[in-house]
């Protein structure tokens, strides 16, 4: 599994757009295997929080599936 760090720009339901430290923007969908729930993401957006995400590539579209999200 890959890891990325970035700033949470936008949260909608279980999806979040993150500005990665590399400069690119990436859309993440929270995996059903992740302990995080959609309602817990709202405060990350409000705080424009910096996060570390462990993820794998989504195979059903142009997004990544976040398995673990940690505020840093």
């Amino acid at each position, binding site marked *: 599994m890959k890891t990325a760090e970035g700033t949470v720009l936008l*949260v*909608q*339901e*279980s*999806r*979040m757009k993150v500005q990665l430290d590399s400069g690119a923007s990436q859309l993440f*969908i929270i995996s*059903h295997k992740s302990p995080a729930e959609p*309602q817990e993401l709202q405060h990350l957006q409000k705080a424009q929080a910096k996060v570390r995400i462990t993820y794998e590539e989504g195979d059903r579209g142009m*997004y990544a599936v976040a398995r673990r999200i940690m505020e840093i």
Partner: protein
Amino acid sequence: MQIHPRAREYPDSQFSRPIRDESELTAGVKIEPGKSYGFFTDTTRCIGCKACEVACKEWNALPADSVGLTGMSYDNTGGLSASTWRHVAFIEKIGHGGGRATEMAPYQSNWLMMSDVCKHCHNAPCLEACPTGALFKTEFDTVVVQQDVCNGCGYCVPACPFGVIDVNLDDGKAHKCTLCYDRLKGGFEPACAKSCPTDSIQFGELAELHRRAAERVQELHRLGVESAYLYGTPGAPGATGGLEYLNAFFLLTDAPEVYNLPRAPTRASNRVMPSLLSGLATMAGFAVAAVALFAGASRNGR
């Protein structure tokens, strides 16, 4: 073209904060809880630009779900799904009736285009099928999935007569158009309707949309488009089988099936009682047959 008097309060092209009740300026309607809102999609005005699809994906942070060619004309999304809540259908009407087209009428469009979306049914079958109460009616009379309550059981998927709602297998939750619930709460017109350059998608109060739609049908009839009719308004095709009416309704010029819409959609709950009764009747039939067989066998045994 009429300009709303409030528009004069905003002469600048850049704003430091959102405009209060912006929908009053963009859609001519003030959004208030307790009223019924919906979409009127006039397919005769659709030019297939897909601005609605893009606006929907952009606002709702929905991923592109197919980047290849579908082989279906200019259609690249194929249909509504968990990550496509607006879908522009392209229907090319060449060689209809089984024959190969050898000539075309000049200056006539042979395309039907329609921006499909969740119908936000008055009696929503998805909502009736949901065992957790994740699907609910909002204060704007629209149907929304509460993500924190949805357990991903998928009962809503076969219950929808239009094949709209879908479960994303990655997050394990059901998704569909929310009629931009978050935007409505902020006084904004839904993203798809706001982005539509031809006003093919109109957002507003349902009673006003019904009035506008009826006028448009009459206008089209006057212009010679006799085939124009409404789909999803009370008493019209699409509002059958106990659905009563659809908050997102359409103006069509061909049979519903041509647009991939069911001619007579029904609520799944309508079929519960007949199924239950037929099951009970079958069981009773088997029981009577078994009793008759055992009774016959025991008589022969003596």
